[in-house]
């Protein structure tokens, strides 16, 4: 029964995918969308069943299908595991997935390839479920690469535009760089422990104390983290995520905010027993996370494309999650993943609603004053913005506060930088809100004429998500955390409750004050002084550096891409020619020897006879005298 239901959970989106691929066009847009949504909804219901089951029995469900890859020392099975962590992830993946599918029915309605869009989305959900449910690292890897593929397909959904295709390609390749790291990590683990199964891996790592001194263990952890960097857009592999905004907005919401990019966090949490044993790697994770958080936030300060702002905000928030991971506070990171999924999905969907209303306009300088025309969008986005800014009592407040608190206890520098990042977050999010919804509309007359609130298929998901963004913090209140309690069996340790002292309250106050500070600056700048971000050509000074994302793309281009192409050119032009020339040269040499030899064969019998005598003499000498 469990096995069948688990397969239903896994395969429902896949069936949706197959339906949309083969019959979607014939079935029509509405049917295609409904089937797509339903298939994810089925998965969601199946997940809730497992959630309930887990709550009642407390036993994870393991589903073994068949042997997949055999190696000399061990086999890798096709099997799935439904434990606390994976069910938690599945809940919000399928839940938010359903909402976004629903949203897309309306959002993508004008697109001629809507059935394909739903096919890809379903495929994505399928791979995401595989990623989460896999009971060993390699099954996870199937999902890991699969979601990358879907991300590629969806970013390049409007494939007529080659720039979008470039963005899609970039995303895939950046991910692949991380994937290589991940694979190497897998190899090391396989080599050390002869298994890739989570449970077995855990017991063998924990039971084998000799391996602790093995530097390979740290290398493995580092390699896994490189993989996570690629998928979760951390420095140095983050540049694909902002570009990925080329895809349709629901894609940005689902893949590039709520689910796929959290796969890195999922994986690190999964392998927490490994990272716990490698403190150096944990330090690296924390530092990388913090730097990413502040760098991405600083770039977000000056972006003018509404989706780019959200994208950098996502990178920054992911950085904060990695900060938590690096400090060993996995449950805190998970908490932030969930709240972030709520409010960021809501923000993206809201921005999608705005873009939809403006017929594709994404530049905030051409927006403004939409508050009245789109009240539902405005209020839902406002709630989410408050949540991401960390205002009491919205969800973001609790989760971000926990991260900063952990940072404070871990290392004061990390805390300071993290706090700066969150102040920046408050600033640019409110900048976004002010520019989009307040003051006067700055677009064309025609756009103004068509301004309207989005249909209910779009607003309902927004409302639900906003609601979740508002109250999501309840699942893990300090001192009495349901989430921590829920995850206890997974982490295999009783969670020591924070006891809330004066320090904690002070920290909360500082965080709130910081957020308010950010909001205040934004208010004074964009409401009081009514400033507008400068046009592209007028951006100067440090803002220009920020606007151009610290020229990281250009640097990568100059450092890696161009040399690679140069080498390729060199190989193709010269080395290939040389090798080929060498071979041809051998042929020519033979020819030349033949030509020279030809003149000896001049038909003179005397010469032949002479050669003959010499030959006979040589043979005789060789046979009898040597």
């Amino acid at each position, binding site marked *: 029964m469990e096995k069948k239901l688990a397969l239903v959970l896994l395969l429902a989106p896949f069936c949706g995918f197959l339906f949309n691929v083969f019959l979607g066009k014939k079935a029509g847009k509405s049917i295609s969308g409904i089937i797509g949504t339903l298939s994810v909804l089925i998965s969601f219901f199946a997940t809730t069943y497992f959630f309930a089951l887990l709550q009642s029995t407390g036993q994870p469900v393991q589903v073994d299908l068949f042997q997949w890859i055999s190696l000399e020392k061990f086999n890798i099975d096709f099997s799935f595991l439904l434990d606390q962590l994976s069910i938690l992830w599945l809940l919000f993946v399928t839940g938010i997935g359903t909402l976004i599918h629903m949203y897309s029915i309306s959002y993508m309605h004008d697109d001629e390839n809507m059935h394909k869009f739903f096919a890809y989305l379903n495929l994505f959900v399928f791979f995401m479920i595989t990623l989460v449910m896999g009971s060993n690292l390699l099954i996870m890897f199937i999902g890991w690469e699969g979601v990358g593929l879907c991300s590629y397909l969806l970013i390049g959904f409007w494939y007529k535009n080659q720039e979008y295709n470039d963005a899609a390609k970039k995303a895939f390749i950046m991910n692949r760089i991380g994937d290589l790291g991940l694979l190497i990590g897998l190899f090391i683990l396989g080599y050390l422990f002869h298994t890739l199964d989570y449970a077995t891996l855990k017991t063998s790592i924990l039971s084998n104390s000799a391996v602790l001194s093995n530097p390979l263990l740290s290398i493995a952890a580092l390699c896994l983290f490189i993989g996570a960097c690629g998928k979760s857009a951390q420095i140095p592999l983050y540049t694909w995520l902002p570009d990925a905004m080329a895809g349709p907005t629901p894609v940005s919401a689902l893949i590039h905010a709520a689910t796929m990019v959290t796969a890195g966090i999922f994986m690190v949490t999964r392998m927490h027993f490994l990272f716990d044993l490698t403190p150096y790697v944990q330090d690296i994770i924390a530092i990388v996370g913090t730097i990413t958080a502040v760098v991405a936030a600083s770039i977000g300060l000056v972006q003018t494309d509404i989706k780019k702002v959200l994208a950098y905000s996502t990178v920054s928030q992911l950085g904060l999650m990695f900060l938590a991971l690096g400090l060993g506070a996995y449950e805190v990171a998970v908490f932030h993943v969930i709240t972030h999924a709520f409010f960021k999905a809501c923000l993206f969907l809201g921005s999608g609603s705005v873009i939809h209303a403006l017929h594709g306009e994404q530049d905030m300088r051409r927006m403004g004053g939409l508050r009245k025309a789109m009240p539902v969008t405005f209020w839902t986005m406002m709630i989410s913005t408050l949540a991401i800014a960390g205002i009491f009592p919205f969800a973001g407040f609790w989760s971000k506060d926990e991260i900063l608190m952990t940072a404070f206890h871990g290392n004061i520098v990390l805390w300071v930088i993290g706090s700066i990042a969150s102040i920046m977050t408050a600033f640019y999010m409110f900048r976004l809100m002010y520019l989009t919804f307040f003051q006067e509309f700055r677009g064309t007359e025609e756009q103004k004429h068509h301004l309207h609130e989005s249909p209910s298929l779009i607003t309902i998901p927004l409302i639900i998500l906003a609601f979740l963004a508002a109250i999501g913090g309840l699942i893990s209140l300090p001192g009495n955390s349901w989430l921590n309690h829920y995850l206890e069996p997974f982490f295999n340790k009783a969670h020591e409750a924070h006891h809330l002292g004066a320090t904690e309250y002070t920290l909360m106050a500082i965080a709130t004050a910081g957020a308010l500070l950010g909001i205040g600056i934004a208010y004074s700048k964009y409401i009081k002084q009514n400033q507008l971000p400068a046009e592209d050509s007028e951006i100067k000074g440090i803002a220009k550096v920020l606007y151009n994302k610290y020229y990281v793309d250009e640097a990568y281009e100059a450092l890696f891409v161009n040399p690679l192409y140069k080498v390729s050119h060199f190989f193709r032009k010269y080395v290939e020619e040389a090798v080929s020339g060498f071979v041809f040269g051998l042929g020519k040499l033979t020819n030349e020897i033949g030509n020279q030899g030809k003149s000896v064969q001049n038909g003179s019998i*005397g010469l032949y006879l002479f050669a003959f005598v010499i030959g006979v*003499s040589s043979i*005789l000498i060789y046979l*009898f005298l040597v």
Partner: protein
Amino acid sequence: MSTLLIIFYFLSAITIATAFLTIISKNPIHSAIYLVICFFSVAGHYLLFNAQFLAIVHIIVYSGAIMVLFLFTIMLMNLNKEGEPHKKWATKLAAVISFGLICFVMLAVFIKAMPVIAAYKQTGQDFQSIKVLGKVLLNEYMVPFEFASVLLLVAMIGTVLLSKKEKSVQ
């Protein structure tokens, strides 16, 4: 020094001298004449071995048939004059070198291969009379013998064909 040895040296001297003269005579007719003498001396060697039959056959085949053929051909081509142009010195040098080389090599080979002979085998059996040879030839070597006749036949036909004047070619 026994008589046989004297005869041997005498015959050998004739053989080598005439062979050499054959080679260096300017006039082909002279060469042919010297060759005949050379063949006769070789026949003398055969007689020395007591191989009378072979000696006779040798005289008939070589001195008789082959030499007559040679002479006829020379006459036919009207070559009885000393008109051969000289070869280049390089060719001559090459000839001398190969002569020396092959001479040296073969002698070296034979000397190296020669067993230390204390006494020669002497079975006392008759092994080279016509009677014995005939038996060997027609028993053990029956098939090659027949083939030799075929060979001669073929050679005859071939010769006729080759030396026939082609009518089509003017």
